[in-house]
């Protein structure tokens, strides 16, 4: 009586343990919203479902915390076929065309009305500046500030924090809200997502210049596959092209601030002729 609905249900019931051509194996962090979560609420979770559906596969996750050597330990050790977000310019994996470009942004309390637009702003020398530390390194804008002699003004906030805690990246926005720092410089998708969910109103503005001393603050983001897995890369490129409007809607729903592509192309236009590297 219910056989029709049952057969639909079985589409996502996967046959065997391990590699299977009907499965897109995705490595993702189980606690890294807005990007991914074990409960499937992240942008990358949604993107994985969307792309897998378009290439006729179902998604199987390998959960792996996104710390250093993430690519090497996941794609590199064949724990999965794809990771949903990596910079288009990354050498250690094969990358699809970028499906969005975003930027580091200045985040300050709206009620302070600071109107920050540039790293060259002379007020930085009087401010406490919050910046994420990523592994052993600071996020890119820190280098520009240190080069200006403002290393002492920087307070580092671990992107990881104590990993067991929910939502570590949001601590930086809390610090802006509480006044512990005057301004935070944050990767756009994090800022967009957490600011929209915060009780405090923030001003958010893209970091300019876009590149400083060779360090880019804007990045194209691609899906990553194993280096040399050209068949999958091409399939995913086609899927991204075909699903472009859905992907754009998805990005909007997560508040991802987008910037124009370096080539000036449109988000849903044809694929640029060469890899749209940001650096």
């Amino acid at each position, binding site marked *: 009586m219910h056989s029709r609905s049952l057969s639909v249900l079985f589409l996502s019931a996967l046959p065997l343990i391990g590699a299977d051509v009907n499965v897109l194996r995705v490595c993702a*962090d189980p606690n*890294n919203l*807005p*990007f*991914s979560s074990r409960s499937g609420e992240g942008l990358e979770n949604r993107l994985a479902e969307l792309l897998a559906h378009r290439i006729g596969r179902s998604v199987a996750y390998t959960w*792996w*915390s*996104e*710390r*250093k050597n*993430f*690519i090497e*330990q996941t794609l*590199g*050790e*064949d724990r999965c076929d794809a990771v949903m*977000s*990596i*910079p288009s*310019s*990354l*050498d250690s994996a094969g990358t699809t065309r970028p499906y969005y470009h975003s930027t580091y942004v200045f985040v300050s309390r709206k009620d302070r009305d600071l109107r920050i637009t540039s790293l060259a702003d002379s007020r930085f020398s009087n401010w406490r500046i919050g910046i*994420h*530390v*990523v*592994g*052993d*390194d*600071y*996020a*890119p804008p*820190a*280098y520009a500030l*240190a*080069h200006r002699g403002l*290393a*002492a*003004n*920087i*307070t*580092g906030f*671990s*992107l*990881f924090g*104590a*990993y*067991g805690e929910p939502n570590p*990246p949001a601590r930086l926005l809390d610090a802006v809200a509480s006044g512990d720092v005057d301004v935070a410089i944050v*990767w756009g*998708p*994090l800022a967009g997502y957490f600011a929209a969910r915060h009780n405090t109103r923030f001003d958010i503005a893209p970091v300019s210049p876009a590149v400083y*001393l*060779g*360090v*880019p603050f804007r*990045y194209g983001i691609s899906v990553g596959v*194993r280096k*040399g897995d050209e068949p999958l890369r091409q399939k995913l490129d086609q899927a991204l092209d075909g699903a472009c409007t859905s992907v754009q809607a998805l990005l909007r729903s997560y508040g991802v601030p987008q910037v124009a592509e370096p080539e000036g192309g449109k988000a849903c236009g044809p694929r640029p002729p060469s890899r749209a590297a*940001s*650096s």
Partner: protein
Amino acid sequence: MKISSLVWVKTILLTAVAAAISLAQIQNQPDDGQWTMPAKNYASTRFSTAGEINVSNVKNLKLAWTFSTGLTRGHEAAPLVVNNTMYVVTPWPNTLYALDLTKPGAPAKWAYQPNPVPAAQGVACCDVVNRGAFYYNGKIYYNTLDAQTVAVDAATGKEIWKTKLGDINQGETITMAPIVVKGKVLVGDSGGEFGVRGWLAGVDADTGKIAWRAYTTGPDKDVLIGPNFKPFYASERGADLGVKTWQGDQWKIGGGTAWSWISYDPELDLIYYGTSNPGPWNADMRPGDNKWACTIFARRPETGEAIWAYQIFPHDDHDYDAVNENILLDLTINGRLRKVLAHPDRDGRMYIMDRATGEVISAEAFAFQNTTEYVDLKTGRIKIVESKTTGFKTTRDICPAPPGGKDWQPSAFSPRTGLIYIPHNNLCYEIQGVQANYIAGTPYVGANVKMYAGPGGNRGEFTAWDPVNAKAVWKIKEELPVWSGAVVTAGDVVFYGTMDGWFKALDARNGTPLWQFKLGSGTVGQPVVYKGPDGKEYIAILSGVGGWSGAVVSGGLNPAADGTAALGFGNAMADLGKFTTKGGMLYAFALP
């Protein structure tokens, strides 16, 4: 330094040198044929008085038996031998095996499983290694990757206590072998993740309770610096230098872990150890000397109280940890008997220091280096070559590379030859601006480090060093970094292993190769010498390639690691290249 395959740099009068050395530490610990701690003794000489195997007969050395750990990550531990039992600690999951040497083939008596949490594997910076255990008073003490210290009954394998010292969620792991001094188990943390604040802890050997913890950075009260702190150099004096040599609150996340070796002088009642590099990596981000990173500390074992400190490399910008071993020797230098420690540093220099005061007596280079000109013996300050500093710029031809002229792989000292035998690297590197990277959803930029072989094209060396005259006596070139420890015996044979799987014996007097054996996997372990129940002398070593040096191979240093796809090497093997395969195995050798 120009080297050939085997360079006889200087002829020394063996008897004269030997006579010049007062060997209080070694003589105070009569050698009973056991091997109760990785460094053999508190002085860390890794010298065995066994002489059955000697320069004449070592060519006949044969494999006696083997024992498989069943694991395939890097095996860096020294086995212990106590009461005719061999104790072997494996990489994660850090199983402790007790092998019965009285039975043919040394079958396992028991295995103790500490069950470290699997998540620790993701936090370890450089493979899930463990460097060994320590026997003390009927118990085996060692650390687990998930930052716990355990005490296990040496006879039964029963757990006596287990104490959590660090938090893997904060990036803390432990890979070092502890030492036990005056009832305190001394343990330091490892931590590749930014945000770790390094420490050394003293844990009560009976109860597992933490008696003291000395942080590397922060105010004097945290560093356990008090009224008895008397550093030799003025630059190390002043209140709260662990705060003041940093900008703002950066000391709170300033690194300086204590992840390697500890020595002990019972007469002076001082322990000696070095701290690791400061964080973050990019030196421009942390102006100042960044104390007490890259520092050698002398402390009291019972309280942790600092007695002196010497920062080898202020404001380190090459990842030159000061964690390498400190060998405690009494040497007659310039006609004066000195109680010294010999510390072959990452920066490529051998620091000979007065271990009572912290004075640097000499600091000559044992490995090729171009980052420093000299150490000013008056001020203690190292003279940096400005053109080789790093930061937010491109710098080329920097020697040594971040793994240093030498990493943790421990040296040995023979009182018979008066030489220190140093297994080490010959690596240089360049930093080419920045490259995009991505962690946890966030793009960032990191230095684009490329390492390569130093002058001569060989990536490893084995050097015999005269600590009195501060000169190399002979050197052996090795294709790959020599990442195993060394051991030397009264038979005047020195042993070490290579990453491509050769276990080698040289004449300790002149470096003449005497014997070698091909292990199944490359070795990054530590050879030990013991007397079997049959009265024979045995040499044992764990093979099983891995460790940070494995990452060196996989990091493009080894040209064979790329481009072999056409010959069938898949991605999974690329990290080991053409030189070796994985697999943990203990080998015990003896004369027939």
